[in-house]
């Protein structure tokens, strides 16, 4: 059950959330785009972004109450590594116009070639990073 059915159902729920945003608001559920858009606030464009992010965080609170083990724990990395990882994700997703949700789900569902290239690229870069840190360096600190 836990190996594939729960992830599959989780994916469907996530897809429904993205579909709801498209149906009602006509927006693409790309998390980096929704968050990054707050850096260039425009009139009437801020409320829904803040609400979506608020919904995400509320989801975290609900998950922590219902099934805290599902949230896992951070990979043990030092302060510097964590900050660098965050900066890479923030800057990289803006430069590349999307992340796992925007390119990996919404873009691929649209059949976008750009999103396919982006998804394959960040998966490969992620796998290469894990290979280097885990198998060549023997873990991060």
């Amino acid at each position, binding site marked *: 059950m836990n190996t594939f059915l729960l*992830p*599959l159902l*989780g*994916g*469907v*729920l*996530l*897809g*429904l*959330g993205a579909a*709801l*945003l498209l*149906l*009602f*608001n*006509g927006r*693409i559920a790309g998390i980096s785009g929704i*968050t*990054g858009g707050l850096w260039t606030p425009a009139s009437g464009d801020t409320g*829904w972004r803040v609400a*979506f*992010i608020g*919904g995400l965080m*509320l*989801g*975290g609170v*609900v*998950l*922590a109450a219902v099934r805290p083990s599902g*949230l*896992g*724990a*951070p*990979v043990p990395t030092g302060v510097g590594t*964590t*900050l660098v990882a*965050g*900066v890479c*994700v*923030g*800057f*990289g997703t*803006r*430069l590349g116009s999307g992340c*796992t*949700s925007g390119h990996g*789900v919404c873009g*691929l569902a649209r059949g*976008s070639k*750009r999103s396919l290239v*982006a998804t394959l*690229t*960040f*998966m490969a*870069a992620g796998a290469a*990073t*894990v*290979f280097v840190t885990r*198998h060549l360096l023997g873990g*991060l600190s």
Partner: protein
Amino acid sequence: MKQVLTAGVAGLLFALGLGMGGMTDPAKVVGFLDVAGAWDPSLAFVMAGALGSYALARRVILRRAAPVLADAFPGAPSASVDGRLVAGAVLFGVGWGLSGYCPGPALVVLPVGGLTVALFVVGMVAGMGVFRALVKQPG
């Protein structure tokens, strides 16, 4: 106001899906990316479920002339693959592999996850700010 409410509900569903699927567990994410080690394929099923359901829903939704609460559906963005796209995806992949967090799960875990995820989000928001300050916005 209605748009704010629907966006909040969409965010909540999205978060519950991420949590249920295991995307909020960095060890699981790193396990998924660890193709040379003890590979954990379960997150591929999250992607399959999300992609399948969204692709299907999208086809039905786009039969409408317009969204329920907005004027128009988004137009198709630029189709060209460029260096910026690839460089951005590489940087994102490196950060994702280092931490096990991508933007959605990081924001979900933020209120309950302690110092590490808070540091990650600070870095992420700063990285977006640096992009905003240094790089010209794409047309």
